[in-house]
C-alpha cells in the first residue's frame, strides 16, 4: 500500500534534501556574514573611500561557505545523476547516507560563516586605524575558515565514498 508520505523515505528525496540543506544553510550563513562585514566596511569607507578595496577583500571572506555549500550540493547532484548524467534510483539507505554527508557543510558552514564574519568585521576595525596590517586582519578571519574547509572536505569525501 502506498501512502502520500512515502516520498519522505524515498532515497532520491533524501539525497536532494541533503543537497538543498547544504545550499540553504551555508548560503544563509554567508549571506548573513557578508552583510555583517559589509555594514562595518561601509562605516570605514564613509571615513575614507580609499579603503574600499581592502574592506571589500574582508567582506568577501565569509562568502566562501555559500560556495562550499553549493559545491557539496553539486557533487551530490552529480553523483545521483541529476546534473550531467542519467538519474539513478536510490534506495532509502543510500539517500539517507547522502543526506548525512551533506550535514557537515550545511551546519558548520552556517555557523562558521557568521563567526568568520565577526572576525572579519573586527578586522575592518584594524584597517580603519592601520591599513598596512590588512594581512593580519585576513589571517584572523582565515583561522575560522579552516573549519568550513574541513567540513567541506568531510562532506565531499563522504559523498565520494558512498557506493551507489
Amino acid at each position, binding site marked *: 500500500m502506498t501512502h502520500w508520505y512515502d516520498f519522505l523515505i524515498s532515497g532520491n528525496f533524501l539525497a536532494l534534501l541533503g543537497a538543498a540543506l547544504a545550499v540553504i544553510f551555508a548560503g544563509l550563513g554567508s549571506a548573513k556574514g557578508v552583510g555583517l562585514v559589509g555594514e562595518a566596511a561601509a562605516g570605514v569607507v564613509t571615513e575614507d573611500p580609499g579603503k574600499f578595496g581592502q574592506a571589500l577583500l574582508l567582506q568577501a571572506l565569509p562568502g566562501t561557505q555559500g560556495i562550499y555549500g553549493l559545491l557539496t550540493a553539486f557533487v551530490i547532484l552529480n553523483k545521483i545523476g541529476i546534473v550531467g548524467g542519467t538519474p539513478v534510483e536510490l534506495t532509502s539507505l543510500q539517500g539517507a547516507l547522502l543526506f548525512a554527508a551533506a550535514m557537515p557543510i550545511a551546519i558548520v558552514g552556517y555557523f562558521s560563516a557568521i563567526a568568520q564574519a565577526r572576525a572579519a568585521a573586527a578586522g575592518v576595525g584594524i584597517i580603519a586605524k592601520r591599513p598596512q596590517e590588512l*594581512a593580519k586582519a585576513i589571517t584572523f578571519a582565515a*583561522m575560522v575558515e579552516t573549519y568550513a*574547509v574541513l567540513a567541506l572536505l568531510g562532506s565531499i569525501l563522504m559523498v565520494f565514498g558512498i557506493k551507489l
Partner: protein
Amino acid sequence: MAIVKMNKLSFIGLSDDKDLIIRELMNLGVVDITDISHIADEDEWKGMVKKFKGGDELLQIESDIQKIKSAIDYLQPYDKRKKTLFKMKRSLEYDEYTSAVNESALIWDVVHKIDEYESQLSLMRSEENKLSNQIAALNPWKPLLIPLELASTETTVITAGVVPASLDSKSLVDDLSSNVPESHIDIINSDKDQLYVLVIYYKKLEEEVQNVLKRHGFSKISFKGMSGTAEDIIKKLESQILSISKKRVEIKNSIEALADKKDILEVYYDHLTIERDRLAIVDRMLKTDRVFILEGWFPAEYGDKIEKTLKSKFDCIMEIRKPEEDEETPVLLDNPRLVQPFEAITEMYSLPNSKEVDPNTLMAPFYFIFFGMMVSDAGYGLLMSIITGILLIKYKFEGLLDKLLRLLFLGGISTFIWGALFGGWFGDIVSAVTSGRYSIPPLWFNPMNNPMKLLICSLILGAIHLFVAMGIQGYKKIKEGKILDAIFDTGFWYIFLIGLGLLLLGGTAGTIGKYMAITGAVLLVLTQGRSEKNIIKKFTKGVLSLYDAVGFMSDVLSYSRLLALGLATGVIASVINAMGTLIGFNPLGIIVLIIVFIVGHVFNLVINALGAYVHASRLQYVEFFGKFFEGGGKAYKPFKVNTKYININNGRIQ
C-alpha cells in the same frame, strides 16, 4: 636567505657644513639615520648636547607642500592627456629639474590663480543656490498677476500668505465672507502641504479679519524688496543664474588653460618634499654650539664609499663599527629575484629581526606549490601569468605592488603546472563543449576520481613543510651553541615522527618504522624533562611531551585544505561549464555560452585566487612561522631622495 649586514656610522661635523653634509648623505642614499635626540634629555648628557628645534621654516615648507598638492589635485580633472591605467613616475634630466625649480615665481602665480578661481567658483555656487531657492519660493505665486510690492490701496489692505493644506479651503472662504463681508479672498495656488492665498480687506476691519485668519492657521508671507509680478521676478532670477553659469564656463576655461602647468607643479612638489626631508631629518640629530652629531646604520658594503665621500669633503670625526652582540639593526633583505615576491607575504606577517634567519628562501617554494595546488587549473594559471606578465613588462612598478604582481605571475605558473597534472583546463571545458567526445587527460591523475590520493599527497607535503620548520628551529639552536638541545628537541622528534609515518605504510618499512618510533619515543621521554630537577617530574614531563605528537598531527591535517580548495576550483568550474552548455549549440546558446564562460570563470578565478592567497599565507603564518619565527624587525629606511611624481636621472641633487 640573507639579512644584509649593517654597520653603524657615528659622525660629528661642523655646524657650518651641516646643510652640505645632509645633502651629501641624501645623495649617497644609504644611511638610515637613527633618532638620537632623546639623549639630550638624559642626565649624563644634559647641558652638553642640545636638540634641534623644529623651526618655522619646516612649518612653512609643509604648508607650501599642501598648497601645491591641492593645486595639483585641482588641476587633475582638467588634464586632458590620455591617462594610463597606472601612473608612472616621469624621468627628468637634472637640468630640466633645476630649470623647473627656478620657475618658482610662475608656479606660485599658478597656485594663487587656481586658489582665486576656486574661491570664485564656490562663491558662484552659493549664489546660485540662493537664487534657485528664491525661485522655488516664488513659483507657487506665479498665477498672481498683481505686482508683489502692492500691499495696500487707499482703503484696503492686500495680504499674501499660506494656510495648511489639511484645511477645508471652502470653510475658510465661507468663514471670512460671512464674518467680514467687506473682504475678498483668492486661492492662488495649492500643493500637498499648503494653500497659497491672497486676502484683500477694508483697512478698518483689520482686527476682525486677522481673527478669522488666525483661526485657520494663516501665516503671512512678505515679499520685501521685490517688485513686479512673480513671473517677472522669476524670469529675472533665471537670467541671473544663466549669466552665472556662463561665467563659470569662462572660469573653467581659464583653469583648463592652466592644466599644462600641472607637470611643473609636480616637479616643484617633489622639490619641496626633498627640501622638507632635509629639514626634518635634523630632528633626529644632536648639536653643541659648534658641531652636530648623527648616528645611522648602513649596509656594510657601503662603508668605504661613505668614509671616502665625507672625509674628502668635510672636516669631521667619524667612526664606523660593527653592531654589538645585543644590538638590533634595521633589516634589509637581499634575496634572489625569484624569491623577492614572497618577501611580501613574510613582510605582511612581520619582518625578521636582525639576528634571526631570513625565512623567505625556505618558504618560497612551499608557497609556490601550495598556491598552485589550491587553484590548480591550467587555464586559470595561464590567464593569471599572461595578464600579470603583460602588466609587468608594460609598466615599471615599485615596492609592494611590484612584489604582489610578480607573486601572482609565479602563482600562475604553479597553477598551470598543477592544473596540467590534474587535467583541469577551465574545469572540464573541452569535454563540456564537445559533449564528452574529447577531453584533455590529466598528466598525473584526476583528483575528482581519486580524492584520497591527493589528500595523502597534501598531508605528506604538509609534513615536509613542518619538518623544514622544525629544522630551522634546530638550526637556530645550533647557531646559539645549544647543540644538545637541537639534537634532543629536533633530531629525536624527527626519528619519532618519521617512524610513525613509516608505520602507517606497513610492510618492511612499517617494521623499521615501528622500531624508529619506539626508539624516538624512548629518547624523547628520557630527554624532554631535562629542565626539571625532580626525577619524577623529569619522567612525567618526558612522557607528556609525547602528547605534542597530537599537535603535530593536527598541524598536518590542516594541509587537507590543499585538497579541498583544489577540488572546489574544479567543481565550480564544471558547474559553470554545465550551466554554459545548458541551452545547447544554437546561435542563442553560443552567445549564452560565451557570456556564462567569461563571467563565470573570471568569478571563479578571482574567488579561488583570493582563497589560495589567504590559505597559502595562513599555512606559512600559523603552521610554518609559528615553529621558529620571531620577527619584529624594523625595516631599513635610508635617508635618500624620495619623490612622488618624478625620477631624476642619475639621482643626484646638488
